[in-house]
Structures are given as C-alpha cells and as structure tokens.
C-alpha cells in the first residue's frame, strides 16, 4: 500500500494512466489528509474491464473500516458498475483505494485495452461538532461537555457562562467566581436555571456599567434558594452588594422586591453547600441614567438656556445673564458658564450669579468734566453721564451736526463700556475756544 503524503488535495491514477493498465495487479493507495479533515474523492476518468459484479478488474473504495463501493466499466456505460460522478467522503482523515486487475482483458477472443482511471481527492473540513450531535456515530473526537465550535481543520469546546473549560479542553466545571456583566441591561441567573443549581458554588456575579448609570434589579420567578424555617439562610445564600455596600442576603422562595441600587456597580455573591435541589434564581437588570436636580438660578438676572424638563448624567446646561449683567463665580468673572451633570447625580459646578456690568469710573475729560445723569457714582449698566467742556475756554468737538449735549451723553453699555450713541467709546474732545477773551479790552472815553 502506498501512503500519500498528507496533502490537502491530489490525484490518484491507475498505473501507466492513460496508457492501458497492466494485468495481474493488486495495489492499494491510502489517502491521508491532516486530522480535522475528511477525504472527498471523485473520479474524473474511469475505464476498466466491465464484468458482472466487477469480478475481473475493479477499484474498491473504503474508509472508516467500511467499503464504500467496488467499481468497473466505463463512465456513462451500463456495463459493469461505473462510479459515475459520485463523491466519496470519509468520516475520518483516511481513505483506501484498492485497484485489482486479473490476468487478461479479453472479450470474445479479442484483447481489449482499458485506460484505467483518474481520481481527484481533496481534504474537506470535518465538522467535529456535527458528529458530536448525532451521537449515534461513534465519536471520533471527545465530546464537548457544553458548547462545540467547529473551524476548518479542527474544533474547540467552550462552556456556558458560569462554567470554566477544564484542561482536557472538553469538560466544564462550574466557575462563576468572576462573572462580569457590562451591558447596560441583561440577565443574571444561577447556573442551570431554572434547573437546580450545582452544589459547592462560590459565585461572584459583578455588574459594572458606565459611571452615570444606576442599576435596577428585578428578580424573576421562580426564585428558589435552599433555606431554613428558623435560621436565616444557613445552607445557600445570595448576597447583594451595591458599590461595596451590602444591601441584603436572600434565600427561600419569596423573590426579593425590585431594587434601585443607586449605583453603577453591583455584586451578587452566591454560595451553595454540597446538597439541594432548589431551582435557583434569575434577575433582569436594567440601567437608568442618573438624574441631576433641576438647576435653579440664584438671582433674577440669570438665564438658563434651553431648560430641560429633566437633566441626566452628561447632560449640561448653559447659564447666561440678562443683557448688562455678567456671570460671576465667587469673585471670578466668567465669560460663559456650563455645568455638567456628573455620574453621582450632582452638577460639576455650582450655579453662578449674574452681577450687573460695571463700566468703572468714566474716563476723565481733559479740559472738561462729567456729571451723572443717573445716580452719582454709580457706574453700572445703563448708568448715564454727561460730559461737558470747561466753557468758555473749551468747546466740545462735534461732527455730523450733533449737539454737544448729544456728543457728551454716555451710557454704560451691556459690554461694560461707556458709549456715546454717535461716537461709541471715544470720549469727546474739548478744543480750545479761540478769540473769546472773557475780559476783552474795552474803551469807554471817546
């Protein structure tokens, strides 16, 4: 027998193919492909001496200790038993092809020449998982205890959540000491729920969701944990912690009420003793975005932009001031103010105040002065002053036909700047008045 190197595909032909094959031959070819694959073979050419039951010349295909067929004749001919386009697939990764010829190829005294055959084989993946499912077939591979995952050339096993694959790569041992749940909602249950949970468990189910989310727990029916009439949970216990703070230990058949844990981190510790057939527990958790209190202004000049009916984590609000007022935080003037709702349900900054804009004392006017039109000394928003020049020596410079009164009128604006309606920030100018002596020479005597 001639083993073929473990290729993933190849051809097998009769000796001297396509020349007529020799007589008196017995040759077995073993086709082997890598483990995890199966052999698939098909005849592309086939021309053997036909005979009833293929007694004289034949090709015999066998695999997995079974004969898959014995063939002779020509493709398309009714004589003998040609293989046609049949595909032969092994279970394992081997297939034998035996070629037998007798001492002659005569028909009615005439020697006949037959080309023999050309067969093509390839390795096809063996779905070890499928074979495990129909367990009738003898299992080539060890069973996965929980979950089987096939891939080209092999397969691997995994376990259901709460179990850990053992070293043998197939069996699963309850391992729930580090179960982590991070989805914003989901289910957590004891192993095998609602079938009885295994004994001797030390399970820790951690639910960790984003900061700013708060977890709500809702236990489902059935809820069954071994308990005792008098003693509180002596056998099996389900302990629940929120942010490390114990919020209860549960057992028995009465499911706990729904929880708002006000936290984004919950741990469930489930300990069981060596016996019991309670069906365990299951909970559904959902998250709710943490809320912040409705922002309230501290004075009537503060405006909250786009007030929302409700604010939750990561929401923010912008505070501004009425015109003429400015944001202050403590004594710090702010150009803008935004507060963000934090993950603990508080605002990251306290509400600011709005202080009236102060233009500061008006600039002094060279060769002139000013009076307050509004309250003397008050330089805040909408205060008004009137500049004037030291007449008669100086005169206010105006242009565009505006009067000195108009030119000299300034208002403290919302930008915190003293401004004249016509000339803006520029303060007026007092220009010397020429040719107006206050005591001009006078001559009386004539």
């Amino acid at each position, binding site marked *: 027998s001639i083993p073929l190197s473990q290729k993933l595909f190849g051809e097998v032909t009769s000796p001297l193919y396509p020349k007529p094959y020799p007589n008196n031959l017995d040759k077995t070819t073993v086709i082997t492909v890598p483990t995890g694959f199966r052999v698939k073979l098909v005849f592309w050419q086939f021309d053997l001496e036909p005979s009833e039951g293929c007694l004289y010349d034949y090709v015999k295909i066998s695999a997995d200790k079974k004969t898959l067929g014995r063939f002779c004749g020509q493709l398309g001919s009714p004589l003998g038993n040609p293989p046609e386009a049949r595909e032969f697939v092994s279970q394992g990764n081997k297939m034998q092809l035996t070629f037998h010829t007798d001492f002659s190829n005569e028909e009615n005294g005439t020697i006949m020449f037959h080309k023999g055959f050309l067969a093509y084989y390839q390795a096809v993946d063996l779905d070890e998982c499928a074979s495990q499912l129909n367990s009738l077939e003898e299992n080539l591979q060890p069973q996965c205890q929980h979950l089987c995952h096939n891939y080209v050339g092999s397969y691997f096993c995994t376990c259901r959540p709460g179990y850990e694959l053992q070293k043998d790569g197939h069996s699963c041992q309850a391992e729930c000491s580090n179960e982590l749940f991070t989805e914003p909602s989901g289910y957590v249950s004891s192993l095998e729920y609602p079938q009885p949970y295994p004994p001797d468990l030390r399970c820790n189910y951690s639910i960790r969701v984003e900061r700013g989310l708060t977890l709500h727990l809702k236990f489902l029916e059935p809820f069954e944990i071994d308990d005792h009439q008098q003693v509180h949970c002596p056998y099996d216990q389900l302990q629940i912690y929120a942010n490390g703070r114990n919020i209860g230990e549960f057992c028995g058949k009465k499911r706990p009420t729904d929880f708002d844990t006000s936290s984004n981190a919950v741990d469930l510790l489930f300990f069981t003793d060596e016996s019991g057939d309670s069906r365990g527990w299951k909970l559904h958790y959902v998250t709710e975005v943490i809320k912040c209190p409705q922002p309230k202004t501290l004075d009537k000049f503060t405006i909250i932009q786009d007030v929302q009916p409700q604010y939750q984590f990561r929401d923010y609000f912008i505070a501004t001031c009425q015109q003429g007022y400015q944001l202050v935080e403590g004594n710090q003037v702010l150009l803008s103010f935004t507060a963000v709702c934090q993950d603990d349900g508080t605002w990251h900054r306290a509400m600011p105040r709005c202080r009236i804009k102060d233009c500061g004392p008006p600039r002094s006017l*060279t*060769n002139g002065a000013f009076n307050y039109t509004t309250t003397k000394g008050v330089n805040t928003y909408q205060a008004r002053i009137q500049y004037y020049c*030291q007449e008669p*020596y*100086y005169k206010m410079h105006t242009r565009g036909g505006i009067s000195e009164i108009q030119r000299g009128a300034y208002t403290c604006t919302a930008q915190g700047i003293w401004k004249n309606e016509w000339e803006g920030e520029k303060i007026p100018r007092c*220009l*010397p*008045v*020429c*040719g*107006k*002596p*206050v*005591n*001009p*020479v006078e*001559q009386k005597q004539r």
Partner: protein
Amino acid sequence: IIGGQKAKLGNFPWQAFTNIYGRGGGALLGDRWILTAAHTLYPKDHDAQSNATVDVFLGHVSVEEITKLANHPVRRVSIHPDYRQDESHNFEGDIALLELENSVTLGPNLLPICLPDNETFYDRGLMGYVSGFGIMEERLSYDLKFIRLPVAKREACESWLRKNKRKDVFSQNMFCAGDPSLKQDACQGDSGGVFAVKDENSDRWVATGIVSWGIGCSRGYGFYTKLLNYVDWIKKEMEGE
C-alpha cells in the same frame, strides 16, 4: 508799545512773553502752539549758528508776574521757509511756530486767538489792537501795553517808504498799519505779538498780522506779516491737530 495803555488781565489772554535774543511777543494758537515772528528766533544781522534758549511765558500782564509762572518748554520750532535771516531788508515769511512740549490749560488769562479766514480783515481803516511787552518811549515796559491802530492803505505805506528812501521789501505777504500822524506804534520787544481784530460778525478776536518790522517807532507805519497768506502753512505745521 508806544503811546499805549496798560492791558488788564484777560484783555489779551493769547499774549505770550518770549525771551530768546531779547524780549519778544507771541500769540497762543490752540492749546499748545505759539505763533511768533521768525526774526525773534533768527534775528537779522546775527550769525545763524548761535543758539539762544527759548523761554516762553503766558497768562499774565505783568513781566514780573508772568516770568514767575512756569516757563513753557518748547518741543519744536518751525520757521517759515521763505524767511531770510541774512537779508536784513527783507522780512518776507517773518513767521514761526513754537510747539510747546505740553498743552496749556486755558483759563480767563490764557486763551488762544483765532486765525483769519478772509480778506476783509485787511480792509483799509479796519481797527486792530497790538499788544506787547516791548519798549515804550526809550523805556522798558514792565507791563503788557496795547494800542489800537487802523490798517493803512498800502499805497500810503509804499510812498512813505519811498519818501524815506527805504529799500525794504514790502510784499503782498505783509500789510501796514498805523499812521505817521499817530504816536501809537509797536516797537522793539513787541515783535511776534499779533495785530488782533475783533470780528463783530462772529464775535471773535482774530489775529490778522504779526508785529514784524518798522522804521523807528511811532509817527510812522508799522509792518505786519499778513497771516491770511500763511494759514495753510500754519495748519500744515499743526497737522493732526
């Protein structure tokens, strides 16, 4: 000033008292310019190199008092380009501007005078005032004096110059005032002061001329720089004001 009378405080609040190559006058323009005669800074028959200090006083009518007031430091001196220091018979372009280092604060005794804006200020016979701390009849004055003079007819001045066999330049950029019959006249020490006219239309005093030159003092004509012809130059020098 010959034949003049004492000015009272506030009569001529633009009057400056200068002390450069001797006593001189000037007039305040705006609040930081002094208008004066170029020859007070570059006197004729003086070598051009000498550099006298320029002292400017303002705001009083008594020499003693005015010199007690702070001297006003001068930032820049502008001499009109037509002035010829070396031509002793030619007072063409006898005008200069002193820019003060600091603006002055105006008040009843310190006020600027206006500049002329039309020819009527030079009509014959129009009365103007000339004030100055210059000498009187051969005596130094301790007070600001003033006189009142009429603008004279050009031809009269020209023939008067001829009769006195004078070759001095009397150009269109000058005018003359006074009269040989009058005692009143400006005199040495008054140069740089202004011939001031009260413009009744605008109720303002206007400087129409600068005391510039004359033949002796009194009983004759006085010759003044005609300011109207230099207003553009003045404004250019004050550029940005």
